[in-house]
């Protein structure tokens, strides 16, 4: 198959690519091809203007060779990367010492421009320049650019965010495929994983971005998680390897991507929205701290006690007194004869006893709570997520009720929030009363920590009427 490429005459950046077949049969493409060939164009990569260069070749030579999935330790020759002279790196060498695995030793095995890091350490300031996101045609999110403040060391660096699979299990063969792509197109350096849960492939020259993304998607991974959209959602290990989970976090996340993929890949919200799904109140994903929308597994009835098992756990040396003392509600009572009992009024369903005592299991009336507004910075600093819905049933496979609610919530956010205002900041600005009414949740004592002490309150004139008992 003959391929026709139109490239920048100066830097070789491919602006368009066709097959000979397409040019013969698709009039729209033929028209565009002629148009581009005859016009003076500006290259988005190097900003050189002029006529585009045409190159023709047969498919084998043009098509990027597919990564050799499964081939152990295969390395492909790097594509046009800036070469770095080996200069002294005393700071990085100092950080390569010590018993813990060293990141500087790892950097030195790659094509990362080590002088950028070394000089940052020496000068005590970062050597990178302003950064942001770019969209490539067909790749709306997932690509970040980072300018360099030291162009003589490196001109800059792009990287790609790859959405992690549910459960963060990676098949060795698939991971080797990603390694091949990173070797071929990038620094040969991976970030496993970013704190947002993405796998990042670092140092991809602009002209390699498109082929790199294409090969990543060929492996079955997708890119995303930049810009003002749903960022990559994180889920706890859930039913894949945990005995405590209260709903199927992995299935929930998969269904999430089925339903909301467009909102993940096409930014449209006022600011980013981070979603975390925790299987139980142990919150291993730290969703209560950093998620704009946090879906947490909860149960309403009391923990289940298998008295025989608990007794044998105590007999085997389990410290039941410690658990009873540390129970936050003071709800547990142990009696060697009667066994363990729970005070239903004060039990907080916090999971502590269930975590620690063999023979205790979460209750059966299970669902999820939805909390909103957690963030690490936003405008007004770190904020814990606030309860919006204390209990809602999570029904597989499509979790319609939960997702419908979240959609309603983001519609309110999208409609009323200001530009670059995180959900938590928005909630803080408009206030609990208005926010809860906009979203349409009923007041419930489960929604607040305590009533206010300040008696100042703005009443609307429309609220003033004769309210005496008849």
């Amino acid at each position, binding site marked *: 198959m003959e391929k026709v490429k139109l490239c920048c005459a100066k830097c070789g950046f491919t602006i368009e690519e066709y097959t000979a077949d397409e040019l013969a049969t698709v009039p729209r493409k033929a028209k565009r091809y002629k148009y581009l060939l005859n016009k003076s164009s500006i290259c988005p990569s190097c900003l050189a203007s002029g006529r585009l260069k045409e190159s023709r070749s047969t498919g084998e030579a043009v098509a990027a060779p597919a990564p050799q999935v499964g081939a152990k*330790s295969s390395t492909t020759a790097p594509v046009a990367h800036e070469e770095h002279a080996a200069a002294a790196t005393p700071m990085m060498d*100092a950080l390569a010492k*010590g018993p*813990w*695995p060293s*990141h500087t030793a790892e*950097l030195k095995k790659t094509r990362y421009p080590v002088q950028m*890091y070394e000089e*940052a*350490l020496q000068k005590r*300031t*970062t*050597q*990178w*320049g302003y950064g942001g996101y770019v969209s490539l045609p*067909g*790749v709306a999110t*997932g690509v970040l650019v*980072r300018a360099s*403040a030291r162009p003589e060391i490196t001109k800059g*660096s792009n*990287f790609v965010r790859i959405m992690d699979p549910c*459960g963060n*299990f*990676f*098949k*060795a063969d698939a*991971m080797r495929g990603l390694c091949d792509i990173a070797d071929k197109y990038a620094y*040969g350096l*991976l*970030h*496993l*994983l970013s*704190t*947002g849960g993405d796998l990042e492939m670092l140092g991809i020259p602009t002209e390699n971005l498109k082929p790199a*993304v294409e090969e990543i*998607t060929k492996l079955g*991974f*997708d*890119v995303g998680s930049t810009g003002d959209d749903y960022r990559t959602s994180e889920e*706890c*290990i859930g039913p*894949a390897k945990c*005995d405590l989970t209260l709903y199927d976090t*992995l299935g929930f996340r*998969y269904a999430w991507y*089925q339903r909301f*993929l467009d909102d993940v890949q096409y930014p449209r919200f006022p600011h980013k929205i981070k979603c975390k799904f925790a299987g139980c*109140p142990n919150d*291993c994903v*730290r969703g209560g*701290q*950093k998620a704009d929308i946090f879906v947490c597994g909860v149960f309403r009835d009391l923990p289940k006690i298998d008295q025989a098992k608990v007794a044998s756990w105590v007999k085997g040396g389990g410290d039941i007194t410690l658990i009873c003392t540390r129970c936050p509600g003071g709800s547990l009572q142990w009696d060697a004869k009667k066994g363990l009992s729970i005070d239903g009024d004060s039990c907080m369903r*916090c*999971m502590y006893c269930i*975590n620690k005592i063999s023979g205790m299991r979460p209750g059966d009336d299970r669902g999820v709570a939805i909390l909103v507004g957690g963030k*690490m910075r936003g405008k007004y600093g*770190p904020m*814990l997520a606030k309860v919006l819905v204390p209990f809602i049933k999570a029904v597989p496979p499509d979790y319609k009720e939960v997702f419908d609610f979240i959609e309603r919530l983001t519609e309110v956010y999208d409609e009323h929030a200001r530009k*670059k205002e995180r959900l938590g900041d928005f909630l803080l600005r408009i206030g609990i009363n208005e926010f809860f009414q906009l979203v349409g949740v009923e007041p419930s004592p489960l929604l607040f920590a305590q009533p206010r002490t300040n008696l100042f309150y703005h009443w609307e004139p429309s609220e003033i009427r004769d309210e005496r008992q008849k």
Partner: protein
Amino acid sequence: MPGIGVPTLEASLPPIVKRNYGKWITHEHVRPGVIKHDSETGEACYTVRVGMPPNARVSTGTVRMFCDLSDEFSEGYFRITQRNSIEFVGVPPARIDELIAVLAKAGYPVGGTNRSLHNTTCCTGYLHCHLAASDPAAIMKSLSDMLIEDYKTERFPAKLKISGSGCINNCGEGSCADIGIVAIHRDLPPIHEEKLKGCELPLVISVCPTGAIKPKGPNMIEIDPKRCIHCPACSVACAAMAPIGSANGDGVAIVVGGKAANTGDGPAMAKVVVPYLPNNPPRWPEVTDVVKKIIDAWVAGARKDERVGEWINRIGWPKFYQRTGLPLSFKVMDGYDARALELAKTGVRFQW
């Protein structure tokens, strides 16, 4: 091209997980770094947890080594945890020692479970970020070197999580952790006038949390230096106000007591206990010193299952400062906070 979403569970889960999906009934910490899960099918699953270089930034050569090891020991799959450890899931119990020995030879420690130091996490810092006020990766390397024995053993009262962020944007989640290192700027953001035309000035003005940025004629702004809290929202929103920072201006704050779980005292954000320490590469001795003091006091004083924040809640802040010997300043209770006065003491229930 994009638009395919995340891989299906069928494609991404290892066989032992598929066989027992949702059927686990109990788990136990066999030894540091090794967890055993029992399934109602009668199958037992052993997981081996491995520490990673700071920032989990690894060369493809190292990733391939993990791939080869997972082919050898865990049916060709490995997992990356929330705190960036590598987990080999489903290792045959007879081969656990062999795997640990192979990893040790390659320089990778096994541990980070239960009452130990969990793998440290941090943001990219100087490695790849234009906002970084410090390099948490280097700090985490220094701390991990110092605490590696606590990673491999379970001598702590409860689990200990240490995270580092390279600026107040807190991508490294310092405020989530038991002990967090959050880098701070102390300089005013610059205003590069020639670049201001390329900025959305109304946005720059509105993102400032204290209203320190004001318009000054057409296409020009000014900063009220008294009100600036160096957050640096404007530097993010506008290239003309970046880069912020300088060698002596930047440094780190130490925060303690963050926790996500609803057990004990419930979820909490970490609180600032040391407002500023200087950047001192490559090993940040001032920072490691403070962290060591906090950990030593916590280990000596905490009851079993008491995380750092819960220990402080019980003994109170006066005892915390007394036991750790950290210098105190009003800068830890004043500062930018909507509820600033609530940080001052009311009542006289003193824990002398």
